[in-house]
């Protein structure tokens, strides 16, 4: 199971692990007995055709949908029965395949509200939220990191498509998660925006465990430390990029001579 890569000092720290994770929708098995580990300092890409179960896997890891069977561990704790908000507060951040923001709020407020979830008393009811220094500081830092510092006052709905994708990431970072589940962050992005996003992912890599679902194979092979290939809900390969590229089974099932 251990990736054949240059050894990291102190060994790998697994932040998120799933074992035997399964989701059935009636007779259809969307995700079938998937066991994976996500380590700090790694970009772990999950690839597969549409309908392979990648988004369902992310949704189960995030707690957005319940697993039919299997177990999810977050930093050594069994979180299988935890609700999504509880997992999020424990350090699990996610972005969505389809942009999922607060369009009528400003970019800053989008980030601040996300950061507010991680403050000690997010339900504080009399101090104006605009003066909540903790969430403001985190919001500014996250927006800067995602390259949005120039558009903080703009309603999020008026951002370009790429800008909205950046905001997705910024909102995710604002809660200071340990694990990032990113569902197609590059979808619909131009070449320049893709470059920026890959730089950001590389920058985030050391401190986080990153699960990256992505269709852009060039990007995946450039950034990923480990690649898992899913077909019809099952994992057919999970290995270092070179090994995955060389695998005949993957070639046949998915990559098509890439």
């Amino acid at each position, binding site marked *: 199971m251990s990736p054949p890569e240059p050894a990291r000092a102190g060994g790998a720290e697994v932040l998120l692990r799933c074992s035997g994770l399964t989701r059935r929708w009636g007779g259809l098995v969307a995700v079938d007995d998937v066991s994976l580990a996500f380590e700090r300092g790694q970009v772990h890409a999950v690839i597969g055709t549409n309908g392979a179960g990648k988004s369902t896997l992310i949704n189960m890891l*995030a707690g*957005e949908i319940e697993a039919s069977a299997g177990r999810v561990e977050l930093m050594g704790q069994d979180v299988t029965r935890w*609700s*999504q*908000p*509880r997992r*999020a*507060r424990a350090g699990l951040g*996610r972005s*969505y395949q389809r942009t*999922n*923001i*607060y*369009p*009528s*709020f400003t970019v800053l*407020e989008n980030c*601040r*509200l*996300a950061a*507010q*979830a*991680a*403050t000690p*008393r*997010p*339900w*504080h*009811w*009399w*101090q*104006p*939220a*605009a003066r*909540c220094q903790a*969430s403001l500081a985190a919001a500014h830092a996250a927006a800067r990191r995602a390259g949005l510092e120039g558009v903080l*006052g703009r309603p999020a709905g008026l951002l370009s498509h790429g800008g909205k994708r950046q905001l997705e990431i910024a*909102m995710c970072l604002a*809660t200071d998660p340990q694990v990032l589940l990113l569902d197609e962050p590059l979808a619909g992005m131009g070449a320049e925006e893709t470059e920026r996003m890959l730089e950001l992912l590389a920058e985030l890599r050391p401190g986080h465990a990153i699960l990256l679902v992505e269709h852009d194979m060039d990007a995946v092979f450039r950034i990923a430390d480990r690649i898992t290939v899913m077909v019809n809900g099952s994992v057919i390969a999970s290995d270092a990029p070179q090994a995955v590229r060389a695998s005949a089974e993957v070639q046949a099932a998915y990559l098509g001579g890439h």
Partner: protein
Amino acid sequence: MRDGAVLEASDRGKLAFLALAFGALALYPLVGGSFGIGLATKIMIYAIFALSLELLVGGTGLVCFGHAAFFGIGAYATVLLSPGYDPAELAWLLPACVGAAALYALAVGALSLRTRGVYFIMVTLAFAQMAYYVVHDTPLGGGTDGIYLNARPVLGLVPGGFELRGGLTLYWFTFGALVLVFAFLAVLLRSRFGRALAGIRVNEQRMRATGFATYPYKLAAFTISGAIAGLAGFLFAVKDGFVNPELLSWHLSGAVLIMIILGGIGHLRGALIGAFAYVLLQEFFKSEAIFGEFSRHWLLGMGFTIIASVALLPHGIVGIGRQLAERRARAARGGGKESADEPA
């Protein structure tokens, strides 16, 4: 920072409006006769009621179609908890009535908030109808005839206490309650709690993904809203000295929804304006002096006016200014030469 400047200007406009509205209400007793005082009291009570619903609809995105239940429970509690022919002590009667409404809201919210959208609307309606038929068909609340409040509550616990009788005492008491409720909601909606409610309104899925357990937030908002509606119900019962099942009817639930739609959802002052406009429209169409025989069909006039206002004023009365500004901007763009990018 042009954005900041624009915001400040609109904030100043808001404050000016509120100062004007509350100032006018504070000065009104100098000129108003007893009919006017009664009408203004009724408007302020409905304004409190509408504010409570605005917290749910405009603040949290929850369309409750059974809000009259909390109003009615506050009103019925006022009568039922008052001892026969002796006045009740205001200092405990008021909290008891508000508490009764809050308790029912807590129970209704706990169940209905498991649903969403149209189902939520229907479930809140069903719970309100349930409460309606409890007072309508059981001897508990005097049945269809309703019951009288024989003695108004008296504040005796503190020096300078008073009897909460109709007229000016009740006017000032209601005015104070309205100011407090408005200030409370304004503070609440700006706070982290209020921003979380706004987040739930705009995108609940994202809120949960970010780490907000949204259900307790919604339940808290629902209960607070029910409590404030109960306060309005208490004032209504004290004002009229009489309660009947109509106070829990879906007509009233609809009326208070219309008030906030008329005024403009998404703004606290919309609830004030809406309550004011609704009651005045009602008085207008009911006036025999103006409509003669036809005043018996006042609902028809009301209906058409409301349909027209919803069609013509999508942002309510509060939004008229913005609507005109947008129209001017469009006209300017249509004219071609001027740049219409600057918001008017």
